[in-house]
């Protein structure tokens, strides 16, 4: 991972005002923007729709040992279950491209998140801070009506929380997830061309309320929003609600 430079100095108020201005000016094309969200807005207010019937994704059991380094190079990643490209609200392949892949072991759910990105921007915030102010994935894993929320950006700062019964997210909850990230490019350097960033993560099954038994299920929703500078600000893409099924 490359050293980073000072963060974008635009404060949230300016960003919000800019966002409002843009919204007014391009009101005629507001619909396509509906998926976009202000980096100052916690993504919890705009979760992926649950109205769509979830699809199923059987995820394979992995036997190898994961070396958490942000490189999805273990054999189990090649056999992992994949979401395919994230999509826009119109059902088209979202750009920048994103995808996610899953495997599980006896103790953990493995999640690999890939983000193509020509201008990588990280929110300089502490753990459990508003990670979504920069480039970030917003991952919700729901079991038994409890949402486990993970926001993670290219520097691997994680905001994890839990929401029960539709209440506010409790960021005091800790998943004890282990993760590593790798960025190919220069984080927070707007003038150059970056390639991508990757998150490699292991989430303890117990934190998700899973026992580690084949056939167990959890619903997952993922959204990724791109925060670039100027014209290099992409939109958001997401996957349809998906039921992960622990395979044999």
């Amino acid at each position, binding site marked *: 991972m490359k050293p980073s430079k000072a963060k974008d100095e635009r404060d949230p108020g300016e960003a919000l005002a800019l966002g409002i201005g843009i919204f007014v000016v391009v009101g005629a094309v507001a619909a396509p923007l509906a998926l976009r969200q202000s980096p100052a807005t916690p993504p919890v207010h705009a979760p992926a729709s649950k109205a769509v019937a979830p699809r199923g994704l059987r995820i394979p059991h992995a036997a190898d040992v994961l070396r958490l380094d942000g*490189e*999805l190079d273990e054999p189990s990643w090649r056999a992992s279950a994949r979401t395919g490209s994230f999509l826009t609200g119109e059902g088209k392949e979202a*750009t*920048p491209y994103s995808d996610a892949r899953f495997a599980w072991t006896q103790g953990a759910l493995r999640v690999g998140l*890939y983000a193509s990105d*020509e201008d990588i921007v990280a929110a300089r915030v502490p753990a459990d801070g508003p990670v979504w102010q920069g480039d970030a994935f917003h991952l919700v894993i729901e079991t038994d009506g409890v949402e486990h929320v993970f926001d993670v950006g290219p520097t691997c700062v994680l905001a994890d929380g839990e929401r029960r019964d539709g209440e506010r997210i409790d960021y005091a909850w800790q998943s004890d997830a282990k993760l590593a990230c790798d960025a190919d490019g*220069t984080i927070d350097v707007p003038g*150059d061309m970056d*390639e991508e960033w*990757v998150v490699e993560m292991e989430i303890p099954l117990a934190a998700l309320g899973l026992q580690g038994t084949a056939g167990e299920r959890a619903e997952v929703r993922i959204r990724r929003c791109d925060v670039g500078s100027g014209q290099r600000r992409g939109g958001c893409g997401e996957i349809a609600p998906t039921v992960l099924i622990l395979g044999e």
Partner: protein
Amino acid sequence: MQHSLRDGLVGVIVFLACVAAMAACAADGGIWDGGTPPATSDAAPPPPNPQTCPPCVIDSDCSGGSVCAQIGGDSYCAKPCPNGNECDSSHTCEAVMTVAGDEAKVCVPNNNACGTAPQPPQQPSTSDGGTAPPPSNSCPGLASPTTTAGCSSCSSSSSSCQPNGCYGGWWCNTQTMKCQSPPTNCGSSTSTDGGSSTGPVQTLDGGVNSSISANGGTESTLYFAIVGDTRPAVIDDTSAYPSAIISQIFSDVNSLKPSPPMVVTTGDYMFASTSGSQAGPQLSLYLAARKNYGGTDFPAMGNHECTGATASNCGPGSTYGVTSNYSAFMSDLLGPISKTNPYYSINVASPTNAWTAKFVFVAANAWSSTQASWLSSTMAQTTTYTFVIRHESSTANTAPGVTPSDQIISQYPYTLLVVGHAHTYSHPSTKEVLFGNGGAPLASGNYGFGLVTQRSDGAVQVDAYDYASVTPDTSFRFAVYPNGTPAP
């Protein structure tokens, strides 16, 4: 002398520039004196109405089933009229030639709305009031209207049919046996990138006659495609190699009329661990996809042909040495074109040597003092056009060879730096174009390819094609003169 739409626009622009600068403008056919676009005089006739005569370079510039046809001394989109009765009252069905060199019947606007057919070059006056020597009738590879030749655009029984088999003042390309507009600089010496005097060169008229092999060759029109960044998203993920997209792109390139005889590729054909075994299988998939294209591919090396890291440096004696990715690239992609170094150059010229071009492939992830010396000596070779192909753009300067090669390149004239690395397409600066949308996970834009086409004014036009629709992004289109200055 006929003036095309583009010439007319150039004339207007030059006229305005001259007025603004209180400078004297050259007369008709103005001298191209190093960076100044070739200009016509401000007395040029008004350009054809683009609504009536939509300009084009190739068929895909046209919509609604129209073809790009030679009309009135330039090329315009025109509706086919194979039965002779498809034209409305403002058009006449005439037999013309398409830019691909095929005869076709199309609806031509009445009253010479797109201009009149070109006449043979006039004998220019000399300063002493006499006349200059008549234009040569033995331009290499071309037969003048009065020379008997084997073109067959018209029948000898027709009164307008010239001895060379063409009509309307067109010359016969004796290699393709197809007619084309008259050469205006036949026999002139090759200019340099610095922009010494040169005039319009051959266009796509008569199709692209080419003979391209591993070391370059000839093209009647400088014409090539650009494909870049064709790797999967994740390391060793060979099962997710973007074969379908790459196949479609090369199939698209092959289907263009005319099909470009050569493609330059900007690197990153694989995403493979250097300790693994996936480099070869991924390149096999690339080569299988590339089989959809029948021309010659000249590959540049990307960072993924080293270790994958942008900052990595490979090759004998380098930091990472000869990795499995490097070896696979050298053997599978450069072996077939007999290149023994990841950096190399090829030369392409017109059959008449009216222009010359060199393509310089820089390997910024195999940088060495040897490559630096080679690059200096190669760039020093004088050619009309110089295209430098390198994987990383100037801003991706963590690659070991980017900044050093930039320093060398900047000391010499060049036309365009062609790069990839970012998974998109863009025109980062006047003399740099980026195509990295060949199948690797997109950062923005669409998958597709670039197309570089030499125009009749000597500038090269760059288009970005979408792989699904095989249509150019007209908002992207730009052109530069051989010395890299913007062309209108």
